[in-house]
């Protein structure tokens, strides 16, 4: 058994493995000025020249920031039990944008709706802009997916109002919000100068489970955690599944970050999200503990949402969103920089790995 199946030459890997995928260096190599090239095995490859578009990237970053604001505003709504303070949807007290009497729970719910509406407009803009200027087809589809996600999110928000916050629908609303945030962050990443212009430094991952698997597992356990947390917050489930899964999440994320830092710390694109992931994980565990104390232990008989509980819970949701997005960024960078080396049996009598 030998590791083969992928040539050891990094330049060749770039052209063979990633030419049409996420990891493709969008700026063709100087010697690859042709729109089509052939690898030694005869595969025809496309090389799509893409240049860094600063305005497009800044707008993508702005959209991602707006998504983060909407998530925080949504957390404020739920924590203040203000989700149904505006009983109608898609209008607010019969009007689309007329400012209502700005008191009580209305402040949170109405503001949430307005920033969410702005986000829909921003997403539509970035989607159309991407369709018009972007040459990478997968990125164009991602922009379309972002728009579809934000529309689905808006509809879920409406359903949660019209059906009086069923836990499953409200949880779906919370989960899709973070999914959209991750997509927005990914678009910002893919349109960035580094992604477009850098030649990725590649190292093969021969460990098992691979870093790529760990990153994906991290995303999975965080989604489970997101659903459990949402169900608890929306009174569809007890608190303990969320707390038990927090231990699993902490373990998987710590494993992923430590693996990334211990083995691939020389790759900046891996090191930075891994450090951020670890820092956010520690912050998130502290915030989760505080939220538990203020909501479950001390605040169960509170006659109204109290500031410590609201602050801790909103921060917990916001940092959770950042942690998920950071993990997604790490997974993307791992996929780009640390591909998994596949083990394939070499036919007997053939010593040349490239023949496999």
């Amino acid at each position, binding site marked *: 058994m030998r590791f083969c199946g992928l040539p050891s030459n990094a330049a060749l890997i770039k052209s063979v493995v990633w030419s049409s995928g996420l990891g493709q260096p969008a700026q063709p190599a100087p010697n690859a000025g042709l729109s089509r090239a052939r690898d030694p095995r005869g595969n025809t490859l496309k090389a799509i020249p893409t240049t860094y578009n600063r305005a497009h990237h800044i707008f993508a970053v702005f959209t991602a920031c707006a998504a983060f604001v909407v998530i925080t505003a949504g957390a404020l709504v739920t924590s*203040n*039990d*203000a*989700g*149904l*303070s*505006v*009983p*109608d949807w*898609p*209008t607010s*007290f*019969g*009007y*689309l944008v007329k400012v*209502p*009497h700005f*008191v*009580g*729970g*209305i*402040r949170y*719910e109405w503001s949430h709706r307005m920033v969410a509406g702005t986000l*829909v407009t921003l997403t*539509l803009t970035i*989607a*159309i802009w991407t*369709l*018009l200027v972007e040459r990478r087809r997968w990125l*164009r589809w991602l922009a*379309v997916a972002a*728009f579809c996600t934000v*529309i689905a999110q*808006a509809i879920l928000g409406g359903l949660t109002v019209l059906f*009086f916050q069923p836990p499953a629908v409200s949880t779906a609303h919370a989960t899709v919000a973070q999914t959209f945030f991750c997509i927005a962050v990914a678009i910002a990443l893919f349109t960035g100068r580094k992604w477009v212009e850098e030649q990725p430094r590649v190292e093969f991952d021969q460990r098992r489970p691979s870093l790529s698997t760990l990153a994906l597992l991290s995303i999975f356990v965080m989604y489970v955690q997101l659903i459990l947390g949402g169900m608890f917050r929306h009174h569809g489930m007890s608190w303990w599944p969320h707390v038990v899964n927090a231990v699993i999440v902490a373990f998987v994320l710590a494993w992923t970050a430590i693996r990334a830092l211990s083995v691939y710390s020389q790759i900046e694109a891996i090191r930075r999200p891994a450090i951020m992931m670890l820092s956010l994980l520690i912050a998130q565990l502290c915030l989760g503990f505080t939220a538990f104390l203020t909501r479950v232990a001390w605040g169960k*008989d*509170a*006659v*109204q*949402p109290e500031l410590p509980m609201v602050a801790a819970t909103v921060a917990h949701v916001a940092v959770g969103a950042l942690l998920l997005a950071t993990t997604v960024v790490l997974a993307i960078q791992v996929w780009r920089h640390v591909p998994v080396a596949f083990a394939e049996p070499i036919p007997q009598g053939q010593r040349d790995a490239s023949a496999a």
Partner: protein
Amino acid sequence: MNRKTGLKMMAVSMLALFSLLLLAACNKKEEQPANTMSQEAAPAPAATPIDPATVATVNGTVKFDGTAPKPSKIDMSQDPACKGMNEAENIVVADGDLANVFVYVKDGLGSRTFDVPKDAVVLDQQGCKYHPHMLGVMAGQTVQIKNDDMTTHNIHPTPKDNREWNESQPPSSPAIEKNFAREEIMLPVKCNQHPWMKMYINVVKSPFFAVTDKSGKYEIKGLPPGDYTIAFVQEKLGEQDQKVTVGPKETKTVDQSFKAAAE
């Protein structure tokens, strides 16, 4: 179809979808008449006759056993229009007497049926609090909800067995009239605009119910002679039952006491 045409079509489709959603949102929702919507109740069967010459009365006092917890303070600062007593009413004790306990005949009436009173029961919102905090009503009886505050409230019952609804009520708007078709004890009602605003409606099939006043007293009149189970329900302290037998024209005192819930 070439790539450019495809891209243009996709962009146009997205714009069209967005415009459609915007258009849908711009259409002002038809406001439902505030005072006409009510839950459909099945036509009530004829009431079982009760001989008024033999009816009995059950009365008594509900006490709180032990040291009463301090009432929680409410912070109403988020709405300048909210002024009034800033204390929660979840456990109201004065000199050991427990107010806001719902007392009703839980069992013993058999298959008797009763006329639903034509008079509406009033639930008022004043000082950003519900008056009363604990309400009893017969199934199908009208509840008239008023807003005497200079701010908008939303009335949002969250029942288990009845239909849920959520309506806003601006200042000086007409009363909202509703009824509840099915029996349900401790049906929570809240205002999502003022999260401290909570009260309970108790929907029962008979007229034999009462709510304890500030001195913990209650009285249930017009009860036919018989064996009954009287239930005492408090929102935080739970339910306690007592069996009682009343003879013709008898007035029986049934006192009850609640202990502080175990921490």
